[in-house]
């Protein structure tokens, strides 16, 4: 159970704060807390921008613990462990003395540097890139101050002191732990421009022996998530949502719901009707008894079959935007020796993280606290503040570890957070309220990976070289009508076309066109965003071209990637490790794909075994990844394994469909994902690199679909309508 955060200490004057780099906080011993506002154990108030930026990133406590304050949410991708490694490397700490907490509420301190630094957030596989310099520098500066404190104490030159595994040692043999010196170090001025360690001296970055910070807690049930938050008097709410997107409440009758034992209140909120109860079961039973009249006049009434028909009709018409054009694809197609065409259908996909959406809100005095998956904390803070009628600096976000996300917790309208704050407000803030979505709520709650249609036409010249590529994409925009709508330029939502419009393949004539469709189904980024569908279309089409040209798929790609050495490198590595070109047992087939997303390049070779009933199993996947410096090699492997399993489940089984505007799937029986026995043997090879690190949370996903599809093509089966479980395809 989470202990309650102490009230933040009053702010020190900026002059004093600036001198306090290390924030000392004893968990129980309040007397040791030197009160920067950041020192409160869990609540991260909107920290003063006047304080030194470093104070926001780590604390060294007299009990010798080092707490790293993460600017990024950990949804399983392991960024807490990555940041701990970066800090420990420079600080000279023993990795075992590090713990990590989420921090939020001050973009000046926690802004995502990979996004320009103005907004805090976790997404686009940017966390390690944003943090690489920031957290190493915080560690290095803290170390310099600890060393100086020891030098002053022992009256020796700082240069004679070494730091190893959390212990400072003078050559005379005098020793002290971080904890012993923390208080004195905190009083020293913060040095500027402390040099970082030479990469050749790294002992933790790149080490195989560094483990995750959270494995023990997560293997013993001790890790707490939003769903586990306990607070005195906490009530639990479930919300009745409109049965179709865009609907609203017309009226409701709460008589029967209120008669359910344990139900405390039934209230209308902006997104539906909430049944607030003493515990979850009462809330669920209460909602079953609740009667709501919905206003569905303007709700989406179409099903996915009608929408796809509409997409097909639109695909035959001129596009609404051209995302990329080089050369003249039409002319080159007209003169091509061979033309290959394909149409692809991609379904809506739910994130279906295992922890369903949830949030907790409590207001005490004029301070509002919100516990949740704060993947976009600035936005959530502003939304919560507006509902509560307080200024954003009165909103404390408790950044919880989340049971997955895959993009779902980065929801610009802050859906479940809005619900929690509105529920707590509706009962006059008299108790904290947790809103929990059931699996059905989560599955039917929208914010899906958009449905897309791709039509592709490509041409080869007489020598078998691709000379023309015409690609049209039809689907909804993720960014339009969101706070990020400004990223849509000239009608082009980059998340609809990324992976096609910027294809690395040297095809002289290429046109990438987009038709953006409006529909009432809310959409969102889903682990690897546009690349979830673009990589599939690009990489299966390239394979088809190779086949049409009578050339080997790896060699064919290499020839088109002469300007892209990183692509070639991972392609070669995956091919070599997979035994590409070597004979396979009867009924076995291989397929390859290579794709760059979020500045990381990944190649995957899938090996499938056909069974005699026309089915198949993915037996083995060999993956090669180039993500710059490998901070935690084993976690890179873990993310590739997970991304491959996640992506494979989707292409095999997953789809959200709607009939008459209502979502057909409600749980994991209708919306199937990868199960234990379907997991292939995955081998991951990490390309050694000295380049700055790039992300790994998403880039493992895009290549798996096309790699499997290409193996199926080698077995004589085409796969252009996803998921593959929709049966025989021609």
């Amino acid at each position: 159970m989470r202990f309650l955060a102490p009230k933040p200490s009053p702010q020190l004057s900026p002059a004093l704060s600036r001198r306090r780099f290390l924030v000392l906080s004893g968990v129980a011993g309040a007397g040791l807390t030197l009160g920067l506002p950041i020192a409160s154990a869990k609540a991260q108030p909107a920290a003063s921008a006047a304080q030194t930026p470093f104070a926001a990133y780590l604390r060294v406590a007299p009990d010798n613990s080092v707490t790293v304050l993460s600017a990024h949410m950990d949804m399983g991708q392991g960024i807490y462990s990555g940041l701990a490694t970066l800090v420990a490397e420079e600080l000279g700490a023993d990795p075992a003395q590090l713990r990590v907490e989420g921090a939020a509420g001050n973009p000046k301190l926690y802004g995502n540097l990979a996004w320009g630094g103005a907004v805090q957030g976790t997404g686009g596989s940017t966390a390690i890139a944003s943090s690489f310099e920031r957290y190493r520098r915080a560690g290095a500066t803290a170390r310099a101050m600890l060393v100086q404190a020891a030098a002053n104490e022992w009256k020796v030159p700082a240069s004679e002191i070494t730091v190893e595994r959390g212990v400072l040692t003078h050559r005379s043999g005098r020793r002290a732990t971080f904890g012993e010196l923390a208080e004195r170090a905190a009083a020293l001025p913060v040095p500027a421009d402390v040099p970082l360690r030479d990469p050749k001296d790294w002992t933790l970055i790149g080490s195989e022996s560094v483990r995750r910070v959270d494995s023990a807690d997560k293997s013993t049930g001790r890790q707490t998530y939003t769903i586990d938050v306990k607070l005195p008097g906490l009530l639990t709410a479930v919300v009745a949502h409109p049965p179709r997107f865009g609907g609203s409440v017309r009226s409701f009758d709460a008589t029967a719901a209120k008669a359910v034992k344990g139900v405390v209140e039934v209230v209308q909120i902006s997104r539906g009707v909430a049944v607030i109860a003493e515990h979850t079961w009462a809330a669920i039973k209460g909602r079953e008894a609740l009667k709501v009249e919905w206003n569905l006049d303007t709700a989406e009434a179409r099903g996915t079959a009608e929408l796809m028909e509409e997409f097909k009709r639109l695909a035959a018409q001129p596009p609404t935007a051209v995302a990329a054009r080089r050369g003249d694809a039409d002319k080159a197609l007209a003169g091509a020796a061979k033309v290959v065409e394909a149409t692809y259908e991609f379904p809506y996909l739910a994130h279906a993280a295992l922890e369903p959406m949830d949030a907790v809100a409590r207001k005490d005095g004029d301070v509002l606290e919100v516990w949740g998956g704060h993947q976009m904390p600035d936005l959530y803070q502003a939304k919560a503040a507006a509902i509560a009628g307080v200024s954003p600096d009165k909103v404390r976000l408790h950044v919880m570890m989340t049971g997955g996300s895959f993009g779902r917790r980065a929801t610009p309208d802050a859906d479940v957070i809005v619900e929690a704050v509105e529920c707590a407000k509706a009962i006059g803030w008299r108790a904290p309220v947790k809103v929990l979505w059931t699996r059905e709520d989560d599955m039917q709650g929208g914010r899906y990976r958009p449905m897309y249609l791709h039509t592709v036409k490509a041409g080869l010249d007489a020598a078998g070289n691709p000379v023309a590529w015409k690609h049209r994409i039809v689907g909804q925009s993720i960014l339009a009508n969101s706070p990020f709508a400004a990223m849509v330029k000239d009608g082009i939502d980059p998340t609809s076309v990324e992976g096609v419009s910027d294809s690395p393949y040297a095809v002289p004539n290429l046109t990438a066109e987009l038709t953006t469709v409006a529909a009432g189904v809310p959409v969102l980024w889903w682990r690897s965003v546009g690349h979830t569908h673009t990589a599939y279309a690009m990489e299966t089409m390239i394979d088809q071209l190779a086949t049409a040209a009578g050339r080997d798929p790896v060699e064919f790609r290499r020839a088109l990637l002469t300007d892209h050495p990183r692509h070639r490198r991972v392609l070669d590595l995956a091919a070599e490790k997979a035994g590409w070109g070597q004979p396979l047992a009867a009924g076995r087939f291989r397929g390859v794909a290579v794709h760059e997303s979020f500045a990381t390049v990944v190649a995957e070779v899938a090996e499938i075994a056909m069974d005699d009933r026309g089915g198949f199993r993915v037996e083995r996947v060999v993956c090669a990844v180039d993500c710059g410096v490998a901070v935690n090699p084993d976690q890179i492997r873990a993310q590739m394994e997970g991304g491959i399993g996640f992506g494979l489940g989707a292409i095999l089984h997953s789809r959200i469909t709607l009939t008459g505007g209502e979502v057909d799937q409600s749980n994991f029986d209708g919306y199937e994902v990868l199960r234990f026995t379907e997991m292939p043997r995955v081998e991951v090879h990490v390309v050694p690199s000295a380049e700055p690190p790039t992300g790994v949370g998403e880039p493992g996903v895009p290549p798996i679909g096309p790699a499997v599809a290409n193996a199926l093509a080698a077995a004589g089966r085409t796969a252009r309508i996803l998921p593959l479980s929709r049966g025989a395809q021609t």
Partner: protein
Amino acid sequence: MKLIVNDREYEVDADPEMPLVWALRDLVGLTGTKFGCGAAQCGACTVHVDGQPIRSCVTPVSAVAGQKVVTIEGLTGKVAEAVTKAWTALDVPQCGYCQSGQVMAAVALLTATPKPSDADIDAAMDGNLCRCATYQRIRAGIHQASQTLEG
């Protein structure tokens, strides 16, 4: 109603139909057992009743009154230690949300079958979903724990 959880007795005021998962989490206050689907589809809520793994989200609390319920918090013994040790050594968890259920399923398997084959593991673990797809490490973790138990 009397519940015996992790060798302690609790008197809970619950509707007999309340699924065990909510009684454990909301009334007893043990939140290590997770809710993932409420429909026996994911295994996140797995606990042991008289040593057998069950889905607590579809088990009415009245059905286990008086029986010995063990949750992740109450796991003890050599097998549990071997499993958590292997899980930590291999960094099996990612988000970790499914892992209480995975560990409960793995401990039940290894208790009944100390040297499981891959087919045994498949049969025991296929009902436990992991959206982070940590399946490969779960399998390796079970094998590793099995070896520890032998040695």
